[in-house]
């Protein structure tokens, strides 16, 4: 039985029917009717951000840490355009978001009205799908469809653009239905022949490796459990992309560490030398593969992905499996167990011996100092002092992000929120706010850089308003460190505009927002200072002054192969400056 109500009421009704508890937003003229409805209920809690960009990243952090769909509500025009970065970020990292945007009334659309922009036009390439709702009787159906599209198949962001007159208009509300979507029916169950072929190939491997990605996390906690079971059953080594960290415990002996541009030597060399690669929910991004024609040259590749367009996009695979990671791993486990294959134990023993040789290089080692805090040391200590707590880590983008990925180790999925595909500076603080909201009792830390944190620092005010005790741990080297590192690598160390001449006093800045500000520049005092940060009840900005010119190693220079890594320990400045050839220079 359809119920009659206004469009604005429908928005709230649909959110409740979808089980939404929190939304992130910022009011404005074209969403006032929805805000009026928000005011008159208490089921859906609205978190007022300080800029719409913050709302989108907060929704991402909320979604990534909880497995739910993140919801944002913004106004027309600038509200919508400010949301574009977060939408693109969520599209690249496959984060399920529903973003509701206000729009000028339908009769003004196309007239260059105040705060009008072509929201569906602008967001078309940066959403999984979007809708402009011109008839109030379509609104409820579209809102429910939006939630379905956001989370079905490969998750992603969607936009529902609602003109103001549609918010005021009265129409029929329909609840969520279970009828199948007309066109969007992603395949979740894998082809069984492909699964059997994959298991056969894995069983015959002499030098196997698992290469896993964010798809494992997106598939849900069960996928991580199944992955652990399969990896342990096979005894094979496993590495992961930045987005997949936590799906497999970093404390396990089969774990090789992250792979890719700043991955470990053992992970990259194992990828390069393997004879069978099992890619699970990973998309062969350029940060992973390095030089394509030298990527794992002697391997047969199995790729499990829910998105057929991810298969054979960058790297040709031999056994493609289209399906959800959890369903596929479940089937692979069943087939593996029923076949109980005879593995080439001798070959695996020598493969592990080879891997142990690479491990012995200790590619993450760095020269520590008694005088200045090395950024790597700061993350190591942060990890050591927080690992036994229920903690969630977000990051901004740059060197600190890579050091966090290298030195902070995750044993569980959904604990690590970072902007991987788009590389959005300013992601970490709002994402931490979203994660904290989803996990109010947990310790949430944004590992930040001094440049990135300023890109969404206004959200510090949001944290105070909602009593969210997030900690921002700034590796402050006064540079845009990754930009500076690339200028050293590529541009003769001419540090064009990568030094921030006038950083704020982060302690005073924290205090201005009502946070606690702390500073540490002495390695000997670091542990106590980190403990003090953790013990502090409210939000804290921790200004960790670190060595200014440290580079992030190991590194596969652009245009180079996995076996051409630069290791940190004994690389000279000259080698750094000559590491990238002419072809690599044009790459990003």
């Amino acid at each position, binding site marked *: 039985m359809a119920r009659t109500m206004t469009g604005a009421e429908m928005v709230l009704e649909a959110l409740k029917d979808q089980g939404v508890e929190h939304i992130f937003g910022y009011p404005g003229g074209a969403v006032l009717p929805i805000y009026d409805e928000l005011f008159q209920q208490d089921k859906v809690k609205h978190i007022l951000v300080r800029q719409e960009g913050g709302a989108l990243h907060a929704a991402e952090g909320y979604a990534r840490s909880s497995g739910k769909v993140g919801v944002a509500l913004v106004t027309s025009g600038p509200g919508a355009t400010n949301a574009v970065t977060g939408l693109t970020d969520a599209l690249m990292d496959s984060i399920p978001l529903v973003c509701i945007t206000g729009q000028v009334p339908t009769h003004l659309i196309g007239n260059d009205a105040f705060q009008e922009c072509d929201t*569906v*036009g602008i967001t*078309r*390439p940066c959403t*999984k*799908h979007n809708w*402009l709702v011109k008839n109030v009787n379509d609104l409820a159906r579209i809102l429910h469809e939006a939630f379905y*599209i956001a989370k079905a198949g490969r998750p992603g962001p969607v936009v529902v653009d609602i003109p103001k007159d549609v918010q005021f208009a009265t129409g029929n509300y329909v609840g969520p239905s279970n009828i199948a979507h*007309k*066109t*969007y029916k992603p395949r979740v169950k894998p*082809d069984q*022949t*492909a699964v059997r*072929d994959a298991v056969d*190939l894995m069983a015959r491997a002499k030098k196997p490796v698992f290469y896993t990605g964010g798809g494992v996390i997106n598939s849900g906690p069960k996928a991580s459990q199944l992955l652990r079971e399969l990896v342990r059953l096979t005894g094979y080594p496993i590495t992961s992309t930045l987005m997949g960290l936590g799906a497999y415990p970093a404390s396990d002996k089969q774990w090789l560490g992250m792979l890719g541009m700043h991955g470990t030597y053992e992970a990259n060399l194992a990828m390069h030398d393997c004879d069978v690669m099992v890619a699970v929910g990973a998309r062969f991004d350029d940060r992973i593969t390095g030089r*394509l*024609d*030298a*990527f*794992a*040259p*002697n*391997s*047969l*590749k199995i790729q499990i992905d829910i*998105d*057929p*367009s991810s*298969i*054979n*996009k960058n*790297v*040709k695979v*031999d*056994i*493609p499996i289209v399906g959800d990671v959890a369903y596929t791993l479940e089937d692979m486990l069943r087939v593996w167990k029923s076949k109980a294959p005879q593995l080439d134990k001798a070959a695996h023993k020598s493969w592990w011996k080879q891997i142990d040789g690479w491990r012995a290089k200790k590619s993450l080692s760095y020269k520590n100092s008694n005088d200045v805090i090395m950024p790597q040391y700061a993350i190591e200590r942060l990890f050591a002092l927080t690992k036994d707590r229920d903690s969630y880590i977000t990051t901004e983008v740059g060197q600190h992000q890579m050091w966090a990925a290298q030195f902070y180790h995750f044993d569980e999925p959904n604990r690590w929120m970072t902007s991987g595909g788009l590389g959005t500076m300013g992601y970490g603080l709002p994402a931490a706010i979203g994660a904290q909201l989803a996990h109010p009792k947990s310790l949430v830390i944004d590992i930040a850089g001094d440049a990135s944190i300023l890109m969404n620092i206004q959200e510090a005010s949001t944290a105070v308003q909602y009593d969210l005790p997030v900690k921002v741990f700034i590796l402050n080297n006064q540079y845009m460190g990754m930009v500076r590192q690339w200028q050293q690598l590529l541009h003769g160390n001419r540090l064009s505009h990568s030094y921030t001449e006038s950083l704020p006093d982060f302690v005073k800045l924290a205090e201005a927002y009502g946070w606690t500000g702390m500073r540490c520049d002495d390695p000997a005092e670091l542990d106590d200072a980190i403990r003090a940060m953790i013990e502090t009840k409210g939000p804290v900005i921790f200004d960790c002054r670190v060595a200014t010119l440290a580079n992030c190693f190991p590194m596969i220079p652009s245009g180079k192969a996995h076996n051409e890594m630069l290791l940190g320990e004994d690389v000279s400045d000259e080698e750094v400056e000559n590491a990238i050839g002419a072809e690599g220079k044009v790459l990003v």
Partner: protein
Amino acid sequence: MNMAKPLAKSHYVGPGAVQAVVSRTLSVLVDNEPGVLARVIGLFSGRGYNIDSLTVTETEHEKHLSRITIVTRGTPDVIEQIKHQLERLVPIHRVRDLTNEGVALERELALIKVSGKGEKRIEALRIAEIFRAKVVDTSTEHFVFEVTGKPSKIEEFIQIMTELGLVEVSRTGIAAIGRGPVSS
């Protein structure tokens, strides 16, 4: 799946081995909702794919279904990507590569304006007859021909008319459908 027996090596093709560029006619069945064409062409421009010809019209009014026929060029790998990327778009029902399936019937209509006097004019009319082009507008100084057929036939006709006083051309782009009794 071409995975009966794994090869000794991956068949990954590096930049050294360049695949040949091929032309493909894709038939895309979509829900005729606002913005669906923008999604399709935005996908092509955003990902750097080519469009050689594009036609779109609602073909089943009750079901609000449109057929978009796209002629595109690319290596077989790129064509494969284009198909998968199109299939990801929410309002798309299905994508078929008519060329690859060897079933494509392709037709195009062109309106061709030719002006001239005397011998050239008579010659134009004679050629038009050979191509089964109809005269749809005329004066003592011009013809407008309507010609339908495969794109290659239309190209040929235009080529000849260039010598006989071609003024301008308007083409519909390619409509294509699969042969045989089943739906494409």
